């Protein structure tokens, strides 16, 4: 089943999808150009009527990956859109204009990974305390300072 959606999206967005991997009949991972993220996400969310489950950022030391997980509940398929961005000043366009519920997970990734979500209406802290130091991102791999945040 996931193969079908992989083909469908690749035909619909031949320029925007850089790479794709069908992990199993239930899981497909697509790497999307940063500039086309909103357009592809909008198609998956509105036209394919997928449910936005959540997003997850991964620090790979040479880059940061953000995965947006969409679930097609009636088909039992997860479509994960992957955006690869540099570790220095990472930024992606915000999806909160298309998906209201994306606003909170973007705030979380902003404070834990230091990713800037361009166009987000209110990119302030959600989980970390107000006195948390600037430019310290707890889920980055190089953040091993055990004293931070002990207060």
């Amino acid at each position: 089943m996931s193969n079908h959606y992989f083909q469908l999206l690749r035909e619909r967005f031949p320029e925007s999808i850089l790479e794709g991997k069908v992990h199993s009949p239930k899981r497909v991972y697509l790497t999307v150009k940063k500039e086309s993220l909103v357009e592809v996400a909008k198609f998956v969310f509105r036209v394919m009527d997928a449910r936005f489950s959540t997003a997850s950022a991964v620090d790979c030391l040479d880059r940061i990956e953000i995965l947006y997980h969409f679930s097609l509940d009636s088909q039992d398929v997860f479509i994960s859109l992957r955006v690869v961005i540099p570790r220095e000043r990472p930024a992606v366009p915000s999806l909160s204009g298309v998906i209201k519920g994306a606003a909170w997970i973007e705030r979380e990734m902003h404070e834990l990974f230091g990713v800037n979500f361009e166009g987000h209406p209110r990119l302030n802290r959600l989980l970390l305390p107000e006195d948390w130091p600037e430019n310290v991102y707890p889920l980055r791999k190089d953040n091993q300072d055990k004293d931070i945040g002990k207060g």
Partner: protein
Amino acid sequence: MEKKKKVVVPIGPYHPLLEEPEYFALYCDGEMVVDVEWEAGYNHRGIEKLCESKSWDQVTFLVERICGICSTSHPIAYVNAVEDLAKVEIPERARYIRSIIGELERIHSHLLWVGLAGHFLGYNTVFMWAWKYREPVLDIFELVTGNRQSYAMMKIGGVRRDVRDEDIPVIRKVLDELKPKLEMLTQAVLDDPVLAARLKGVGVLTAQDVKDYGAVGPTARASGVKIDVRKDSPCAAYDLVAWQVITCQEGDVFAKAVVRLLECFESIKIIEQCLDNLGKNKGPIEVEVREIPPGEGIGHYEAPRGEVFHYVRSDGTNRPVRHKIRAPSFVNIPTFRASCLGQTISDVAIILAGVDPCYCCTERMLTVYQADNRRKIMDGREVIRLCQEKTEKLREKMRKR
């Protein structure tokens, strides 16, 4: 700027309504709520970061401690994610046991919510009933797993311990006794004019709101959105037994209560069928998973409050390089921005409680005194020994009934 003219009514971070710290700012115009802001993080324990320093097997125990109420939902979602990554198929007997534990948890969690909802409305009879009927379910847990909470049953590749044959009739008996009580409680709640007046038409969430905010679980199903991970993406034994997804159309707090109460009956149905199959199916309860290959995996499971989502990434070592966890309340709480607007302050309390934001109520404190000088001793081993003795006594008592 517009907001600044309104009166802000704070709820939390410490508030009698919230058993756990969380902060809600209600922007009010007179009695009416016009906007809601949500601040979280008072309980942020850095579990995702901690997971990166634990082995694949240890993480199962760690994620069990995310939530005390749905303490088996996170491990099920996590083992699903790792099994998706490593492409592992688990034995059939393990599938039935996973479903039994998952559904028992749903019953006790839903009853806990019904009790709390009654309590928030000042209806303490409902609170007393619901929690009294919840107690035998916890006894089953202690009988089968040795613990009332944090059962440590899940394992990558199967389950950690078997359900003993002699316990099966005991579980059946407790469920048989629970059914008429649940029916009575459900009828009492459905027919009560006070509850209807307080809950019907209050905090309505439309199907479009559910889609926009990505709400899950009873919060979505009460608004007519028929999503349930157990049906849509059957793991464990959910495709091997017959059961129904419960939905309501109204989207108000009353509908959420109805969905939860009726789901308890479906859970009992699932458990009974699983128990039937356990008797027939005497296979192994796990397959050995020695190494986790590099790659990524997604696992999800229908917790009592909705879909829990786990994403894991492996680089081939014995620890995950990244583990993302999304609990259902993370997507259900933002729906307050839709369901609270235009409501009065007095109704907001129960609307906030309506999505069943996750509370921890599972601490059991045991103090041991020395007999001669009454000095307190808190020897961990002693406490564990006493707990085990208590569990053995309970097992004996339950099996005799």
